[in-house]
């Protein structure tokens, strides 16, 4: 692998992911609603992206370089608990604020809202819109000759939205090599397996056919995530990273179970889940 993380960096990432997972579970438990499955499947990716790859500033506009930051769009907005937890690790949110998630008056809306929380580039939640937004940002940055990168995280079920492919075509047409799409390919959606509902077919070939560079990785392997993200920066075309993930990753009874797409753990389930995490599964 070309771009490698040191063993101490790997240790740190592991520690942070553990905390992110704990917070995801606590937030959703406290809110009595939310989306644990898809948050746990993408949180390792977000961890590497935010702590090792992206240039970003938690003080937002107060930083003179803010305009030159990399941009992130959570197109699968329902994984908001993962994003907020990662943002807390990076200093955007105080850890205690996390438990206001989904509650009346909170900055931490069920799906990210840019007018409530600094650091959210744009409000998302309705699937199929993030890649297009990302292309618009990439075009704008290119016009201003700003050398920043746009990262968009999509769900695999989300690829069933036709607008994703409109955007895929647009990105290739404009040769937007400043955009990286990451597909959280956990194979499940609310009603069951994507293969049984509307098969995505060969995602890799589809993106290639649309004119994208593609990288296929294990979305829970820090080295592979890191290498793919760094590699995407020097590709000549827009890059799609197809990250194979496990929905509900880290919690045995949530893993690969579509029932945990949009359900909160009860007290007992939370205890059980937190114990599993402490035991370092």
């Amino acid at each position, binding site marked *: 692998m070309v771009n490698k993380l040191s063993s101490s960096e790997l240790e740190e990432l592991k520690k942070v992911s553990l905390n992110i997972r704990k917070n995801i579970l606590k937030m959703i438990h406290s809110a009595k609603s939310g989306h644990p499955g898809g948050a746990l499947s993408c949180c390792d990716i977000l961890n590497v992206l935010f702590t090792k790859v992206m240039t970003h500033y938690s003080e937002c506009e107060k930083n003179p370089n803010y305009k030159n930051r990399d941009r992130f769009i959570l197109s699968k907005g329902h994984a908001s608990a993962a994003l907020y937890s990662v943002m807390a690790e990076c200093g955007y949110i105080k850890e205690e604020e996390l438990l206001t998630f989904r509650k009346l008056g909170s900055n931490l809306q069920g799906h990210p809202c840019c007018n409530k929380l600094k650091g959210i580039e*744009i*409000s998302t939640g309705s699937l199929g819109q993030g890649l*297009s*937004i990302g*292309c*618009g940002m990439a075009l704008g940055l290119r016009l201003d000759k700003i050398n920043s990168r746009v990262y968009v995280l999509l769900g695999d079920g989300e690829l069933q939205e036709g*607008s994703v492919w409109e955007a895929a*075509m647009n990105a290739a*047409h404009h040769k937007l090599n400043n955009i990286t799409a990451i597909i959280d390919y956990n194979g499940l959606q609310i009603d069951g397996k994507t293969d049984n509902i509307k098969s995505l077919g060969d995602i890799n070939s589809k993106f290639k056919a649309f004119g994208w560079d593609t990288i296929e990785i294990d979305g829970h392997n820090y080295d592979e995530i890191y290498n793919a993200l760094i590699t995407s920066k020097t590709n000549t075309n827009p890059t799609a990273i197809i990250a194979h993930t496990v929905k509900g990753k880290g919690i045995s009874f949530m893993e690969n179970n579509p029932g945990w797409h949009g359900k909160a753990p009860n007290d007992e389930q939370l205890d059980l889940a937190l114990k599993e995490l402490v035991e370092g599964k």
Partner: protein
Amino acid sequence: MERECKSVRSAYGNTLLELGRENKNIVVLDADLSCSTQTQIFAKEFPERFFDIGIAEQDLMTTAAGLACTGKIPFVSTFAMFATGRAWEQIRNTICYSNLNVKIAATHGGITVGEDGASHQSLEDISLMRSIPNMTVIVPADEKETKEAVKYAANTYGPFYIRIARTNLPDVYDTSYKFNSKKAIIMQEGKDISLITNGETLVETLDCAKILKEKGISAEVISMPVVKPADKETVINSAKKTQRLITIENHSIIGGLGSCVCEILSENYPVKVIRLGINDEFGQSGNAKELMNFYGLTGEKLAQNIMGILK
């Protein structure tokens, strides 16, 4: 009546060009209709700031949203039907919820799309746009008002919907006209009835008022280009004066200007309001003039109708 008519779409394209020369943050997006919407005028001088997104209206709106996030002022054009229909949810959830500085200037609104028929005649766009928070909705009536509305939108932060007519229109305002986002315009005072309108039906309403005058009916004509946020005061004051209102619009009578006026009056000064426009039905093919006549929106037809109502 033969009058010199001017292309409001060309006025739109030329205003974009003017704005583009003054401000490098102006960018323009279209969905394969730049020859119809006249965004091609901008595209010729600023190809690097013009994006033809192709036949993909959802992508059109959300790409504009992304550009707005980087400080650009995107003007987005296509036919009203596809801008507000196909991409409504992109406008609602991405542009307006995030309160982005995106200007949707759609052409070909209303029945006057003509020969293309019902599939292309947007009779619901004002209704669809008016119900979204943060959105400003403007329906200009002539070349001058179109130019000024576009400039106002460019210089005012937030999402806008501007409906630009397909048809060429005569000047209805005199040279002293200045666009005022907060005030509806009393085109002429009257005491028997108030006629409230905007866009393409303003000239027809003025013709109608002339005919009514010959019959001894004094009509107050109000032009209300800004449907949202609406100037309530002018509507209420006119209602107090005439006690009877008729709204006239090139749009479905559900959800557009007529509904807007009814909302204002039912809460503030309930009087009878009759909404003239396209009833709850789809349009059909025909040339614009024939259709305006068929649906009762020409000056003459309006006058006949209103005299019947007043009897």
